[in-house]
C-alpha cells in the first residue's frame, strides 16, 4: 500500500502543504517497507486543472491512499473515480507527524468506503 502526502518541502520533516493540487512536493510512503519517495509536483505552478492532473500522477505511482487538508471539487471527483482513499488532516505539522496520526487511526476518512 502506498500513501501520499502533499508537502511544502522534500523530506518527511517538512510541513504538510495546505493545498493538494499546488503543493510543491508529494511524498509517497510505502507502508510495508517504510520507504519514501519524493515527487516534485510538475503542476504546482500551472494555471488550471492541477488537482485532477496530480491525481493522475498518483495513480501512475500506484498510490491508494492520501492524507490531505483540503481537496478541490475537481480533484475530489478524480480521487473518487481512481478509488483513492483520502484522510483529512486539519492541523498543521510535519509529514511524519501526519503519518503517525494516520497510523494511530486518528485521521478521519473523507473520501472512500468506511
Amino acid at each position, binding site marked *: 500500500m502506498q500513501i501520499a502526502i502533499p508537502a511544502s518541502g522534500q523530506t518527511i520533516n517538512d510541513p504538510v502543504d*495546505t*493545498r493538494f493540487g*499546488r503543493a510543491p512536493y508529494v511524498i509517497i510512503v510505502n507502508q510495508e517497507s517504510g520507504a519514501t519517495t519524493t515527487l516534485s509536483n510538475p503542476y504546482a505552478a*500551472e*494555471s*488550471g486543472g492541477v488537482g485532477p492532473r496530480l491525481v493522475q500522477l498518483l495513480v501512475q505511482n500506484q498510490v491508494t491512499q492520501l492524507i490531505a487538508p*483540503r481537496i*478541490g*471539487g475537481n480533484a475530489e471527483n478524480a480521487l473518487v473515480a481512481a478509488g483513492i482513499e483520502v484522510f483529512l488532516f486539519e492541523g498543521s505539522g510535519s509529514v511524519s507527524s501526519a503519518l503517525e496520526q494516520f497510523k494511530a487511526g486518528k485521521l478521519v476518512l473523507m473520501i472512500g468506503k468506511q
Partner: protein
Amino acid sequence: MIQIAVVSGKGGTGKTVITGAIGSLLSGRVVMADCDVDAANLALIIQPDIDTTEPFFGMDRARIDTSLCNLCETCIESCRFDAITRHEDYVQVDPLQCEGCGVCEYVCPSHAITMVPHTCGEIRTGHSRYGPFIDGSLFPGNGNSGLMVHDIRKRAREIAPDIPLILVDGPPGIGCPLISAVTGCDIVILVTEPGSSGRHDLGRLVTVCRSLRSRMMMIINKADLVPKGTLALQESAKEWDIPILCEIPLDPGITEATRNCEPFTRKKSQATVILKKAVDHLKQDLDLT
C-alpha cells in the same frame, strides 16, 4: 487561517469600498488581497506603501524559431485560436490570441516551436496602516486572471502567517477569476444593490458559489435607493437561505471618503455604525474576538 472573499457579480455595487472599510475595521489582524486583477482598485482606498513588485507569468506561449521554420503552415492549420499568422517570409504568434495549448509545438515537423513563459502582469506586496497588502494587475488583453488570482491568494497566505484573516476583494463576473477567488474561502460576502440588474446577476453568482460549497452572507448596499428592490433582495436572500449581514444606506460620508481615498469607516456616519456592528457580528461568528 480564515479566508473571506467579498464579491458582487456585477460591478459598481461598492464592493471595493466595502472591502476597504471591513479591512480597516479588522486593522492589525487582516491581510488584504485585491484579486480584482482587471481593475485593481483597493490600493486607492487603502493607500499602501509598496515593498515589492514582481512579474507574473501566465500560461506558456508558443515561440517560433524562424531559423528552423520551413513555412509549411502545419501550425496555422492546427491552431484553434487563430493565433498564428503567415507573413511574407515568416510566421508569427499573436501572444494575445495564444492560449498556450502546445498543439503547434507538437505538430511542427521541424521542431521550430517551443512553449516559453510569458509575462502577463505584475504582483505587488506592501503594507498599509491596517496591515499587509497584496494586489495584482494584468497587462491589457491578457487572460489567465484565474491563475493570477490564485497566485495572489497564495502570497497572501505566505506574507504574514501569524495574521489570522485574509480578506479578498474579488473580481466581478462569474467566470474563471471569480471561481479562483472564491474556492476554499470560509465565507463569501455578496455585496449587492437593489435594482433589477443587481438581482439578476446575483442569482447567477449564487449558483456558482453554491456549486463551490461556499458559505454566503449578503450586504445590501444603497439599500434605501430603490425600496422595492431591497424588498425583493430580502425575499431572494430568504429563498436562497443566505443571511443578510447588514443593509447600508446611501450615505454622503461614503462618497466623501472615497473621493478622499480612505475607508469611510475612519469617520463616524450612519454607514460606519452599521458596518461596524456587522463586522463585530462576523468576528464573533469566526471566533476572532
